[in-house]
């Protein structure tokens, strides 16, 4: 039974046709994949379905009835729920406060916290998505924050659930949990739309696939009857070879050396006595289930978080340096959260690219910006990194998620620092771009740069790294090389590793 139909959806942004006559139909009980390269228009289509954007043309039918959503409230009322690529949560509030927001159980004029907690627990256990109602959202691991996002949609009785790249932030175990939950929801008659770049996932759990390219539908496939190659062809219009990193070992002097680094948050030790080196010409990967201290470790290495222990760059102790001085001393850094830390979304692409190096001779002269040079540099990077952007003067926030990531990577790699630290290099990035980013990082390694990669995508770490460190409960509990670098072994260490001994 067709639950949702979108017909001839068209949406233009100044100069860009993001959706060009898109049609999509999803049955109840179906998991429907929406795929396509960065900037293909997936998020735009989903934002239209969710009432966040108004289409220039086209219609949306739910249960055969034409809908016209003035805002997400209309979409929610029609039974549509969305889990966004970037979470929409109040980080300073607790889980239950976030969940019942605008839907609060009351006791007289007051919000009943007990009823709300109870509601959260019941909702969680009903869908197999348990969550502690009293944790503060800012302290939660990304995987759990996403669970909260799904629960939020379910709490509004959604029948159609949109998940915009939900697995980008998950560990294999969390991902399997999510898939189980998705199947469960589908079996209850819900329609699920999964926006993703990961082909194995699509093959594993979806029933139908709609592929988009440049704002149009370039393929409608039945999952059972298709294969990886066919999907990729529909997405990019060509064949993409898988990335193979050549493993080299390096015994040069460490570029980055971390000794006995610890970070404490109140009574909890989130990073516990961590020591490791990264040498020129190697890529070291840090694996771990989210919430085991990886972001705090990187923050401490970058000087964004106060820590005990020693951080040395090229043999010099920089432990007392601010992030500015560490970066000046030769560290490039791609932060995990590009909206919060990695960019100023309202500023232009060019401004976002130059910021940080704007005091160099290329970008400014005697305290004045050389705007033409800055724009030229931005155009060069946009072209080299194949960023899909109409102009370098557009606000970077108007780019699609993957294109924004490419800009940040381009900027940091372009600094030419001897050490590059990358968190989640390809989160939300399409296959073509993943390949490109991986090759960029490998090329930088081959130029003799030292590279530290943190990723929750194990496949990515295995493809990129010369050595993998596994973090568990704030400690590095394994350093794996060679034949030990396989999904099985790394996965076991990620779960603690004790029973494998």
């Amino acid at each position, binding site marked *: 039974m067709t639950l949702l139909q979108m017909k001839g959806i068209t949406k233009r942004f100044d100069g860009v046709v993001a959706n060009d006559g898109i049609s999509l139909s999803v049955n109840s009980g179906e998991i429907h994949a929406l795929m396509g390269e960065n900037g293909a228009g997936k998020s735009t289509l989903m934002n239209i379905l969710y009432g966040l954007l108004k289409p220039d043309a086209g219609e949306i039918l739910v249960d055969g009835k034409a809908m016209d959503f003035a805002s997400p409230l209309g979409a929610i009322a029609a039974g549509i729920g969305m889990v966004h690529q970037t979470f929409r949560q109040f980080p300073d509030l607790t889980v239950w406060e976030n969940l019942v927001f605008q839907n609060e159980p009351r006791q007289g004029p007051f919000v009943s916290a007990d009823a709300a907690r109870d509601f959260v627990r019941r909702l969680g256990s009903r869908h197999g998505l348990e969550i502690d109602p009293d944790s503060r959202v800012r302290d939660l691991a990304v995987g759990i924050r996403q669970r909260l996002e799904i629960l939020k949609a379910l709490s509004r009785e959604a029948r159609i659930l949109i998940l915009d790249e939900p697995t980008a932030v998950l560990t294999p175990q969390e991902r399997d949990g999510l898939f189980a939950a998705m199947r469960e929801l589908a079996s209850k008659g819900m329609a699920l739309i999964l926006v993703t770049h990961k082909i194995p996932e699509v093959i594993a759990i979806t029933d139908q696939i709609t592929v988009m390219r440049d704002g149009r539908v370039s393929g409608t496939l039945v999952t059972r009857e298709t294969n990886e190659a066919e999907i990729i062809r529909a997405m990019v219009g060509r064949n993409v070879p898988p990335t193979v990193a050549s493993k080299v070992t390096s015994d040069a002097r460490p570029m980055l050396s971390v000794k006995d680094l610890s970070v404490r948050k109140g009574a909890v030790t989130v990073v516990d006595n961590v020591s490791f080196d990264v040498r020129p010409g190697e890529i070291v990967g840090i694996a771990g289930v989210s919430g085991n201290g990886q972001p705090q470790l990187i923050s401490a290495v970058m000087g964004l978080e106060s820590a005990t222990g020693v951080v040395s760059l090229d043999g010099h102790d920089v432990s007392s340096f601010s992030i500015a001085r560490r970066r000046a001393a030769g560290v490039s850094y791609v932060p995990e959260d590009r909206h919060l830390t990695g960019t100023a979304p309202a500023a*232009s692409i060019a401004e976002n690219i130059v910021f940080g190096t704007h005091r160099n001779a290329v970008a400014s002269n005697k305290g004045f910006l050389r*705007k033409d040079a800055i724009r030229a540099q931005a155009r060069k990077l946009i072209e080299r990194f194949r960023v899909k952007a109409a102009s370098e*003067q*557009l606000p970077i926030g108007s780019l699609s998620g993957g294109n924004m990531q490419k800009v940040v990577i381009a900027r940091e790699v372009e600094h030419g620092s001897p050490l590059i630290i990358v968190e989640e290099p390809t989160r939300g990035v399409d296959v073509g771009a993943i390949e490109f980013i991986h090759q960029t990082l490998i090329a930088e390694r081959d130029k003799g740069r030292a590279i530290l990669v943190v990723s929750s995508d194990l496949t990515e770490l295995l493809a990129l790294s010369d050595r993998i460190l596994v973090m568990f409960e704030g400690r590095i509990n394994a350093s794996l090389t060679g034949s030990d670098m396989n999904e099985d072994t790394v996965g076991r260490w990620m779960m603690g590793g004790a029973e494998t001994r």
Partner: protein
Amino acid sequence: MIAAALDTKSRLAAILFSIVAAVVLGGLVVGLTGANPISVYLEIAKGAVLGRGLDETLARSVPLVGMALAAAIALRAGLVNLGGDGQMLIGGLAAALVALYLPVPGVARAVLALAAAICAGGLYAWLAAILQLSLGIPFLIASLLFSYIARGLTSYLVRYPLRDPSTGMPETYRVASGARLPAHILDLPVSMAMVIMAVVAVVIVVNDRSGVNGFEWRMTGLNARFAQYSGVDLSRQTQRVAFLSGALAGLVGALLILGQQYRFTDGALLAPGYTWSGLMAAVLAMASPIATIVTSVFFAALQVGGFSMERALGLPAVLTWVLQALIILCLAARPIFFRKR
């Protein structure tokens, strides 16, 4: 180019829309009192630009542009400076003290008085910034509270130790004519204060558009975390921006004392409400310096026109304040009218 143009275009559209909507609403208010809105607006427009009106508008623009820019440079960098009153008072007092009591020749006294006002106003705002950085008291609150301290302090000083007993008013002695700022340069209708403010305005605009510092301030206002990540020392920058914002307010105090009032009279600097008009102009301009200058000159004209309208029609000039407030309200309410999705 596209985005920058669009950006300014939509901002301009927003400002114009707010002004038009406010004029219509203000007209309704006037209509309710039984007067004819068209003739009221005509009187305001005439009064602002015809005859002596133009001179008055220009004269009023000097402090208003100054206070508006003081608010705007802070706002641009993500700081809300509500303490313009206090910084202006402290600056004005410093200027008056130097101009009255420093035993150096006239012109040098004027120059030193200006410098003293800049330092005093700047330091006063910087202190509020230090409270934010060291004790976590928001700058917005600290700067506002410091205004009350400055008001009490200057009021006491001019009533007792510094008072000119001959006038019967709570005010200081008159600044000697050699230490005043000339009201006309080479017999042109241009005062020294206007020239100084014009130079300051140009520096601010250029710094905002092409200066490395202006760029850093603007990016900080857009995303402070990103600025920190990109190597901006946020604490130092906050102190610097607070100082400059306060220094500009202090300079306005000095320009009023040395170029117009010639003595520090209790309450005289604050009576016209430059700080608040300036803040409104900066908010209306969304902290863009050029737009801030335009909106604050517009507000100055509106106020001057209001006085002239009051003389001509007997309607209270406060109407122009109502208009100013309506403009800001319409700007804030704009999303309700323009739902661009």
